[in-house]
């Protein structure tokens, strides 16, 4: 399978979830198709459609089969895909401050050792790239990011490390991520952002959408603490800009 314009596969996960599968690999073109369908269904959701969960390569649609017939939903999906829906608008580019120093970067020495890069080179490489938010999953606000430079592609740990601090910036398995809620993890913690991608008490609990772009801007620990305090006071320290095509 590839990201070509062929028909997606419609796969049932029980009688209340339909998976619209556009491919089987991580690929921005496939992700674009997933997100375009997600946008189109979100703009005009059929009654009985409960949740839409975009992932790297598929859109999972949770629905109430006593309200929305599976075939009616499938027809709607096919029609939208055939209409070659495009994503609405330009993705937003977010700049997230990131502190790569101790105590926020517990595993950065291990990454330097495994990649043969210096600490500074790891930071420069990670902060030099632009990442695409492919999906959320695993934990609240855990954002999976594509676009990690290959020189930082270290495999994930064979067994998880102890829980990471909140809002950890992590890499592993050729991907990057922001890990909001402390959990044991197989990823490597190389920094932390004061920006809270997930804050259940905030009116807008999440502000970054799948399809958005992210850059990390290195800050020292003093700046981190200042920004963290401002974020705690209700300010949003992530900066918003339009993506340059």
């Amino acid at each position, binding site marked *: 399978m590839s990201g070509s314009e062929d028909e997606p596969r419609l796969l049932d996960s*029980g*009688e209340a979830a339909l998976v619209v599968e556009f491919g089987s690999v991580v690929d921005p073109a496939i992700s674009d198709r997933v997100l375009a369908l997600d946008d189109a269904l979100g703009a005009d959701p059929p009654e009985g459609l*409960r949740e839409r969960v975009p*992932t790297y390569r598929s859109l999972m649609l949770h629905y109430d089969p006593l309200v929305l017939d599976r075939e009616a939903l499938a027809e709607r999906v096919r029609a939208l895909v055939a209409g070659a829906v495009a994503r609405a608008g330009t993705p937003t580019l977010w700049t997230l401050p990131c502190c790569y120093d101790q105590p926020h970067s517990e595993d950065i020495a291990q990454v330097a050792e495994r990649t043969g890069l210096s600490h500074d080179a790891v930071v420069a490489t990670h902060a030099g790239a632009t990442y695409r938010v492919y999906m959320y999953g*695993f934990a*609240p606000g855990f954002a*999976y990011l594509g676009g990690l430079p290959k020189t930082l592609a270290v495999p994930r740990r064979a067994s998880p490390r102890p829980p990471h601090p909140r809002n950890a910036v992590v890499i592993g398995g050729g991907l990057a991520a922001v890990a909001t809620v402390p959990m044991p993890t197989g990823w490597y913690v190389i920094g932390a952002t004061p920006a809270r991608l997930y804050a259940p008490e905030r009116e807008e609990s999440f502000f970054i959408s799948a399809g958005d772009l992210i850059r990390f801007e290195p800050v020292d620990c003093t700046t981190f603490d200042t920004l963290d305090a401002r974020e705690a006071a209700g300010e949003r320290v992530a900066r918003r800009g339009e993506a340059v095509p």
Partner: protein
Amino acid sequence: MTALVVEAAGPGITLQDGGRHGYLRYGITAAGPMDPLMHATANRAAGNPFDATAIEVSTGGLTVTAEGGTLGIAMVSRSFRITLDGAALPDSVALTLEPGRTLTVRAGPSGAWGYLAVQGRIDVAPVLGSTATHTRSGLGGLDGRGLAAGDRLPVAEARPGEVSPHRLIAPWLDRDPKEVRVVLGPQGDYFAPDQIHAFLAGPWTVSPRGDRMACFLDGTPLRHAKGHDIVSDGVAMGAIQVPGNGLPIILMADRQSTGGYPKIATVIGPDLGRLAQAQGGTQLSFRSVSLTEAVAARRAERDALRDPVPRDPVVRTNFASDFLLGLNLVDGVTDGRT
């Protein structure tokens, strides 16, 4: 305000409403009851909305009292041992809990979860629109954690219950865990036909290490046709993933929103409770059904709760609880000496 006070609580007892829906796309698990039908039945019996906040009682057991007023209670389980001031009651019962009296719930020979609903509204603040507790991410319920001795649950709009205890009659909860219905897929193509057959036939043994996140099965490992890693995609409640060791894991209420193992089949919604109630050591197999059959089962489940839950008065006795438990409580009033 009237309150339900937790005097003692075993591990794994949480507040659950119908679930935190709408945020799966941000990695937020719905949580909600492990046995949605039993949870809805308890709420129905208490005169509450089906998806109201209720206490999900684990086999760890629970002891509660009322404070500041009288509380109507519907406690629904299969085979849990319920007592009011030490007097045994049926496993599913509607009663009034006055201040000074003690209601206890203990595990029984079968069943893994029971639901205690209060006539009124357990008044805890919703998070992201729901009171469902997800302990792994610390969301919902009381500070995102399980209940513990000393917790006080305020009850708004409290209504009194049955003057004397009434046995609740809910035959739709008599579900045999030995056969669980599934819809095959979504990654059925990761398994050869003989492996799908082996999966359905089992028999599988429910591992005791299950929790609200997943039910683990022991048995003869399945073989994958083309590897056991997939690029992560969405995970429905009841999805049966098969990791590298070939032993199926059924993802339940507290599952992660996405996952990276092939999913051979999905337990149909109406059989989630049947599976959730299987204690460790239970043997089961699976039966593949069509979407049509699955939807029909869902409709039948909804219809079962359309009318009020039937009930019969329980005649109080001073008999030893063992004797009382041996009586046939199915056909109506027990003939106890008073």
